[in-house]
């Protein structure tokens, strides 16, 4: 191997260890959120790591997470293209349909009643959300991504991320209100 090639390999290894390895756990969490299956998530992260290594020469060292999320986004788009031509319903319409369902009557507490039942209602409402809304909430609330980072991985505008996250939480929050675990909302 030529000395220049040895040096290039060494530079790649150093950059990979410095910029990519520290983001591994975030990548695993995000991959789980966007694929929904642990096996798929692992494949996606492996694919992302390999692509990151291949492309690290062209990475300028600024914002490694954003760079890696873009790589993951591209890898996921490719995987989906190979597997299933998507037939998606519009998530906004889906959520409107769900939101139109009248809530069960409940009393109106003045305070939040946090406890086992609160957690159960939150979890049930969360898992009942349309995929794209649940996914955004997962990326923000569980994986700790910013709106911009979530927008990047999902390939949608930041405003879409914000609106989906807010509407998803409102939906869960309304369930809490209906179950008598939170004050009913009278404001915008």
């Amino acid at each position, binding site marked *: 191997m030529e000395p220049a090639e040895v040096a290039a390999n060494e530079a790649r*290894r150093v950059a990979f260890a410095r910029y*990519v390895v520290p983001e591994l756990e975030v990548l695993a969490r995000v991959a789980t959120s966007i694929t929904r299956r642990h096996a798929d998530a692992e494949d996606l992260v492996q694919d992302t790591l390999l692509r990151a290594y291949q*492309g690290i020469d062209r990475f300028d060292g600024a914002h490694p997470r954003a760079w890696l999320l873009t*790589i993951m986004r591209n*890898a996921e788009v490719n995987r989906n293209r190979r597997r299933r031509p998507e037939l998606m319903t519009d998530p906004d319409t889906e959520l409107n349909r769900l939101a139109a369902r009248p809530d069960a009557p409940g009393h109106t507490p003045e305070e939040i009643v946090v406890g086992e039942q609160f957690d159960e209602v939150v979890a049930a409402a969360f898992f009942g959300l349309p995929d794209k809304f649940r996914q955004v909430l997962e990326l923000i609330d569980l994986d700790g991504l910013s709106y911009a980072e979530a927008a990047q991985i999902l390939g949608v505008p930041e405003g879409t991320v914000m609106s989906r996250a807010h509407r998803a939480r409102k939906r869960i*929050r309304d369930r809490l209100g209906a179950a008598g675990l939170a004050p009913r909302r009278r404001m915008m």
Partner: protein
Amino acid sequence: MLQSYLDGETDDVTTGRVARHLEDCRRCGLELSTYEALKAALLRRVPVVDELAVERLRSFALRIVESPPAVGSGGS
């Protein structure tokens, strides 16, 4: 607005304005507490990541560092 504030996504001016409003407005304070509790409940109830998978991925990353794959013209 409250949710953006909760997520740390508001600019400094708005953050200050919301914080001042929250000092006086019980309804918004309660609303914020509800969203905070909701977020905490999600963290308690929803499994985030498979720890074993993270370990396997760490080994995978280590293998890349130790015996790097050939770099071609492809990649992203």
